[in-house]
C-alpha cells in the first residue's frame, strides 16, 4: 500500500502528484528530490531505489529521464512497489505512445485519470491497459516524437529501415490519422549480453539475459501461438540433445498458457493490449561472442605509453552492429592523448575525457567480419610507479546488433487465430542483441 505517487522531471518539477492517503507530509517531493540530488556528494554513488527519510519510505524508478516516485510509511514489499512504478510507467506509455516530459505535460489530465483507476487509496486495482480502456475517457494528445523514442523500441529505429518510425510509438487507444487502426503485432526478441574476457582473451563469465517482448495492436484480441526452437532445453535436467539451446531458467507473463510448451515448445496466449514481456530467459551456456577485443598498453618512454585496441566483429557479413562505443580508463596522470585511426576509417570518433581520464572510441557502424584498430599515444604529467597494466582498464564496450541473437533462440512461427480469410494482420518478428556489460581486462 502506498501513500503518494508522483512524477518528477529531471530538474525536480512536479509533473503529476497524487496523494492517495494523506499520511505523508506535503513537502515529500522536495525532500525526495534533494536527497537524490545530494546523495552523490553526501555518500557515494547513486541513491538506491528505496530509502527512508524521517520514517517515510521513498521508492523511485527512472524511466525515460523521469522519476516515478511512491511514498509510504508502511513496511511494504519493495519489489511490489518498484514493479508497480514500472508498470504504471508502461501503462502511461501505452496510452501516450511516447513517454517523455512533453507528452506527460500535454496529457496530465489523462494521466490523473489513469492513476485514479490504477490505484485507489494506495491499493493497486489494475495495471492492465486492456482493462483500463473501459474506465478511461480522455483522448491522448499524441505528440510527434522528434527525438528518438526511449526504451527497447528505440533500438529498432537506428540503421534499419524495416519499420516506419512511428510503428511502435503509437498509442494503443489513439487512432491513426486515417481514422483506421492498423492491425499488427510486434514480437521482439531482445538479448542483453554480459561477458568478461580475462587478460589472455579467454571468456571468464558470460550470460545472456533475453526477453520476448510483445506489443499488440490486433483488433478483437485473437489467440496467438508462438513456437520456439523445438530442441529448447530448460535447466540441466531437461537435456534435449547436443547443439540445443539451453536456458538456465525462464519465466512467463500471466497471459501465457504453457499447456503444450513441454511437448512442442509453443506458447499460446491472447495478447492483452499494450506492451508486455511474454517470456524472460537466462542463458549461461557458452556462446560465440559477437566481438573479440584485444587491448594492449605499453610504456614507450619515461612519460609515454601506447595503447592499441583491436575490435573484431565475429558475426556474418550481412549483419551490421550500430552505435559501437569502446571505453577505457587510462592512468591517472595521463595529460594528453594522440589518436591514430587506421587509414580509410569512416564514421569513427575518438575522444579523451579529461575529467575521468577515459578514452572513448565510437564506431557508427561495424560490418560483420571486419576488424578495426585504434592506436593512442599517451603522455603523462608525472612518472608512473608500479605496473602500468594495473593503472589502466578494464575496457568496456557497448553496441547494438539488429537482426542478430547470440543464443540462437528463435520464434519459428507466429500464428494468429483468423476471424476470416481476408483478415491478415501484419506480423513483425525482430531480433536484437545489445551489450549489457561487455568487458575485456588488460
Amino acid at each position, binding site marked *: *500500500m502506498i501513500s503518494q505517487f508522483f512524477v518528477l522531471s529531471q530538474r525536480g*518539477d*512536479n509533473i503529476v*502528484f497524487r496523494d492517495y492517503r*494523506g499520511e505523508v507530509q*506535503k*513537502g515529500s517531493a522536495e525532500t525526495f528530490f534533494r536527497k537524490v540530488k545530494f546523495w552523490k556528494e553526501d555518500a*557515494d*554513488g*547513486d541513491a*538506491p*531505489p*528505496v530509502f*527512508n527519510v524521517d*520514517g517515510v519510505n521513498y521508492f*523511485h*524508478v*527512472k524511466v525515460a529521464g523521469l522519476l516515478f516516485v511512491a511514498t509510504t510509511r*508502511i*513496511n*511494504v*514489499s*519493495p*519489489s*511490489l512497489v*518498484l*514493479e*508497480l512504478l*514500472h508498470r504504471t510507467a508502461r501503462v502511461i506509455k501505452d496510452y501516450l505512445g511516447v513517454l517523455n516530459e512533453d507528452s506527460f505535460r500535454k496529457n*496530465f*489530465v489523462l494521466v*490523473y*485519470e489513469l492513476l485514479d483507476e490504477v490505484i*485507489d*487509496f494506495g*491499493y*493497486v*486495482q489494475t495495471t492492465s491497459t486492456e482493462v483500463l480502456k473501459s*474506465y478511461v*475517457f*480522455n483522448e491522448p494528445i499524441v505528440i510527434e516524437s522528434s527525438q528518438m523514442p526511449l526504451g527497447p523500441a528505440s533500438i529498432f529505429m537506428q540503421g534499419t529501415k524495416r519499420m516506419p518510425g512511428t510503428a511502435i510509438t503509437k498509442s494503443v487507444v489513439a487512432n491513426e490519422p486515417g481514422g483506421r487502426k492498423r492491425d499488427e503485432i510486434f514480437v521482439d526478441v531482445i538479448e542483453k549480453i*554480459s561477458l*568478461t574476457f580475462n587478460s589472455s582473451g579467454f571468456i571468464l*563469465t558470460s550470460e545472456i539475459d533475453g526477453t520476448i517482448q510483445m506489443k499488440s495492436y490486433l483488433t478483437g484480441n485473437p489467440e496467438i501461438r508462438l513456437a520456439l526452437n523445438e530442441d529448447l532445453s530448460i*535447466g540441466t535436467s531437461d537435456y534435449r540433445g547436443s547443439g540445443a539451446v539451453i536456458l*538456465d531458467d525462464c*519465466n*512467463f507473463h*500471466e497471459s501465457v498458457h504453457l499447456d503444450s510448451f513441454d511437448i512442442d515448445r509453443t506458447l499460446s496466449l491472447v495478447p492483452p493490449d499494450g506492451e508486455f*514481456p511474454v517470456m524472460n*530467459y*537466462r542463458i549461461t551456456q557458452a556462446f560465440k561472442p559477437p566481438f573479440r577485443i584485444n587491448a594492449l598498453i605499453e610504456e614507450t618512454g619515461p612519460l609515454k605509453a601506447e595503447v592499441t585496441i583491436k575490435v573484431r566483429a565475429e558475426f556474418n557479413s550481412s549483419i551490421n552492429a550500430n552505435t559501437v562505443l569502446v571505453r577505457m580508463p587510462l592512468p591517472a596522470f595521463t595529460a594528453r592523448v594522440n589518436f591514430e585511426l587506421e587509414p580509410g576509417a569512416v564514421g569513427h570518433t575518438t575522444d579523451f575525457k579529461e575529467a575521468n581520464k577515459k578514452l572513448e572510441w565510437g564506431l557508427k557502424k561495424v560490418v560483420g567480419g571486419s576488424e578495426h584498430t585504434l592506436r593512442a599515444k599517451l603522455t603523462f604529467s608525472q612518472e608512473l610507479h*608500479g605496473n602500468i597494466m594495473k*593503472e589502466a582498464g*578494464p575496457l*568496456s564496450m557497448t553496441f547494438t546488433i539488429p537482426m542478430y541473437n547470440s543464443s540462437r533462440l528463435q520464434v519459428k512461427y507466429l500464428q494468429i487465430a483468423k476471424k476470416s480469410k481476408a483478415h491478415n494482420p501484419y506480423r513483425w518478428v525482430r531480433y536484437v542483441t545489445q551489450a*549489457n*556489460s561487455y*568487458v575485456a*581486462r588488460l
Partner: protein
Amino acid sequence: MAPAPPQSNRSPSPSQPSGKSEVSDLKLQLRQLAGSRAPGTDDSKRDLYKKVISNMTIGIDVSSLFGEMVMCSATSDIVLKKMCYLYVGNYAKVNPDLALLTINFLQRDCKDQDPMIRGLALRSLCSLRVANLVEYLVGPLGSGLKDNNSYVRTVAVIGVLKLYHISASTCIDADFPETLKHLMLNDQDTQVVANCLSALQEIWTLESTTSEEAARERETLHSKPIVYYLLNRIKEFSEWAQCLVMELVAKYIPSDNSEIFDIMNLLEDRLQHANGAVVLATTKVFLHLTLSMADVHQQVYERIKAPLLTQVSSGSPEQSYAILSHLHLLVMRAPYIFSLDYKHFYCQYNEPSYVKKLKLEMLTAVANESNTYEIVTELCEYAANVDIPIARESIRAVGKIALQQYDVNAIVDRLLQFLEMEKDYVTSEALVLVKDLLRKYPQWSQDCIAVVGNISSNNVQEPKAKAALIWMLGEYSQDMHDAPYVLESLVENWDEEHSAEVRLHLLTAVMKCFFKRPPETQKALGAALAAGLADFHQDVHDRALFYYRLLQYNVSVAESVVNPPKQAVSVFADTQSSEVKDRIFDEFNSLSVVYQKPSYMFTDKEHRGTFEFADELGNLSISAESGDSVVPVQRVEANDKDLLLSTTEKDDVRDTGSNGSAYNAPSYNGSAPSAASQPLADLAFSSTSMTSQAPASGLAIDDLLGLDFSVGTVTTPSPPPLTLNPKAVLDPGTFQQKWRQLPISLSEEYSLSPLAIASLTAPNALLRHMQGHSIQCIASGGQSPNFKFFFFAQKAEETSIYLVECIINTSSAKSQIKIKADDQSSSRAFSTLFQSALSKFGLP
C-alpha cells in the same frame, strides 16, 4: 499537489503573486460558463478545468475556485466530471463548508444509470475526507456494496476503508466489516475479494488495539477456510492481488506436513511468473511453511535460486536491486547452498554501487575451499577499480575471506601485493587488513612485517590505517629494525596528529616497544607520556596517566599488562546478532530486507503494517544507544568496524547483553554488537579508572591494547524453585505461532562435556534424555557436527510455556540456546534448569 491552508477569497497566497491574477481570471471565466447551455460549452469548460488542475499540480492554490468549479459540474460529460471529482477530492478537506455543496450532485451521481458514473461518484464521495459529512456516506456505500456492477463494488469496498479512516465508529456501527467479510467469501469478482481482504486487514488491525473481538477476527483471516478459499482461486486474482493473498498464506499455520506440500504444489508455478513481486511473495510462503522441516527448507532454497537469479537479471536495475537484496539475505543464511553460483555475484562495471556492495558481501559469504581462488582473483581486479569506494570494499572483502579461511597462503600474498600498488587508499585498506590477519594468524608475521617495514609512515594518512601501522610497530618492534625510531618521529609530531584513535595507539605502541627494546625507546616513551598527559582529549590523557602510574607502581606488572602472552583471535565477531537476523528473515519480502534492519527500527508503531506484532523492542534499542552516547571511549572503539573479539570476550558480551536489555540492537552503521551492549562495562571503567587496579578497567581497554584478560565468568544464580509439568503438550502449530510472536528472552551459549558429545550420535538420544527432565522436543534435525532442536516445557500447575531453540555443534562442543517464554520473568530460572538438564546428558 499541496492544497494550502484554507484561505478566503480576499487573502490570496502571498507567495504566489503570479498565480493570483491567473486564478481570478479563471474564476471569472468559470462563472460565465456556469449557467451556459450553449453548444461547445463543455469543450470550453474542459480547457478551463485543465488549466485549474495544471495549477493545482504545480502547487498554486486554486481552492478559491471551489464554488465555481462545483457550479460548472452539472454536466453529462464524463471527462469533465472526472476532472471536477479530482479537484473536489483535493480541496474538500480544507473547505469543509463548500464540500457540502458537492454532496448533492455526488449523491445524485451515485444513483446514475451508468455504473461508471456510480463508481466514480462513490469514490469521490468517500475521498472528501470531511468528518461532518460521513452521515451522507453510509447510504451510498451500503447500496454500492450491493451494486450489481463489480466496478462499483470494488470502489465501495475501498470506500468503506476510507470511511473507517474518517470516522471509525460510523463504519463499525453500520456493520460494514461484516458486510465486507461476507463479500470476501462470496463475491464473484476477485478484485472485490482482494479489496475486501485489504480493507479488513487494515480495519481489524487498527481495531484490535482496543477490541479483542477484532483481534480474533484478524486471526480468522489466517484460518484454514479463508486461506483455502483464497488459494483455490489464486489464478483468478490479478498479479497484485496474488501477492496480497500469498502474504496471508505465509502467516497460515498448517496442521500437518501434507497440507504444506499441497500448498507448495499449488503455488509452484507462481515461481515462473514474470512479476518479481509475485515470485518473492511465493518464495516467502515456501520459506515460512518449511521452517520446521530442515531438509525440505533446504530444498526450497535450491528451488528458488534459479527464478530469483532470473528476476535479478531480467528486470530494471531498481527491481533487480530489490530481488538481489532478498537473495543477499538468503546467501547470508545459507552460503553453502550458493557456493557454486558465485559467478552470478561478480560485479559488472556499469552497476550502481549499491548493487556492487551487496554483491561483494555475497561473494565474501559464499567463499569456501573450492572457489576462494577464483573469488579472490576477481576481487583483486576490482581493487584497481576507478570507483574508489568499491575498490576499498573489494580489498576489505579479500581480508574478510582471509579471516574466514583455513588456507590463507595465497591470499596473504595478494594482500601484500596491494601494499606494493602504491595507491593511497589501497595501502590504507591493506594495512588494516594485515593487522587483523596478524591477530588471527601470528605465524604470518615474518612475511608481512618484511613488507610493512618498507612502508613509510609519512605516506599513510588515514587514521585507521595509521593506527594499524602503529599497532604493528608496537607489536612487532623486535622484528622491525627501525620501529623505535619510527615511533619516536611519530611522537615528535604528536601535535599534528588529529585523530585521538591514532594517539591512543601510539601511546600503547611506544609502551610495548619500550618493554622489548628499552634503551632505544626510553626517550620516546618519556616524550609520549608527557604529550599524552598534556593531551586535551580525555581518553588519551587518561591512558597516559594510567600507563604512567602503572610504570611508577611496578614495571614488571606494567609489562604484564601491556605485553602479556597473546592468543590468536579465533572468532570473528558478527556485526548483527542472530536475533536481528531472524527477525529480518521473518519479515521477508519487506523493506526490512533492503534496509537490513527489522521494521521496529524504521517505522512508527502505528505504521508497522497489517501483520506485524506489536512489541517494545524499539524502546530497548534506544536505551542502548543512549548508553553508548554517554561513554565517549566506547565511541572510538565502536568505530572500529573490524573489531575482533576473542572467544572469551564474545561470551562476555553476550552475557552482558542478556542480563541487561535482553536484546542486542545493532547500531546503524553496522558496527560490532559490543558497541551496543558494552556500556555497562564501560560505566564501570570510567568510575574506577583512576584506581587502576580494578580488573573491570581491563575489560574496556583490552581490545585496544590487544590484551586478553580472562574476566571471571558470570556466576550462575542458584536454582530457583521452578518445576516443570512432566506431561506438557503443545501442538506444532501453536509452537510455531508462539515462536513467531514471542520475543527472545534469553540467548546463551553453553559448553558441553565430551561425554555428552560422544553420546550425541543421533538426535534421538538427547530427546529421550531431555524428556526425563520434563523438557519435550517438538522438532529436531541436522547431521553431525550440527544439530538443531526445538524444545518446549510447561510450568507445573500453570499454563506458562517455555520454548527453546538449541543448536549443538559437536566439533566445538558448544550449544547455543534461545529461550522464549510466556512468562519472561522466569526464563532465567528455566534456563538454569535447562542447562543443568543438558549438562547431565551423557553421564552414566
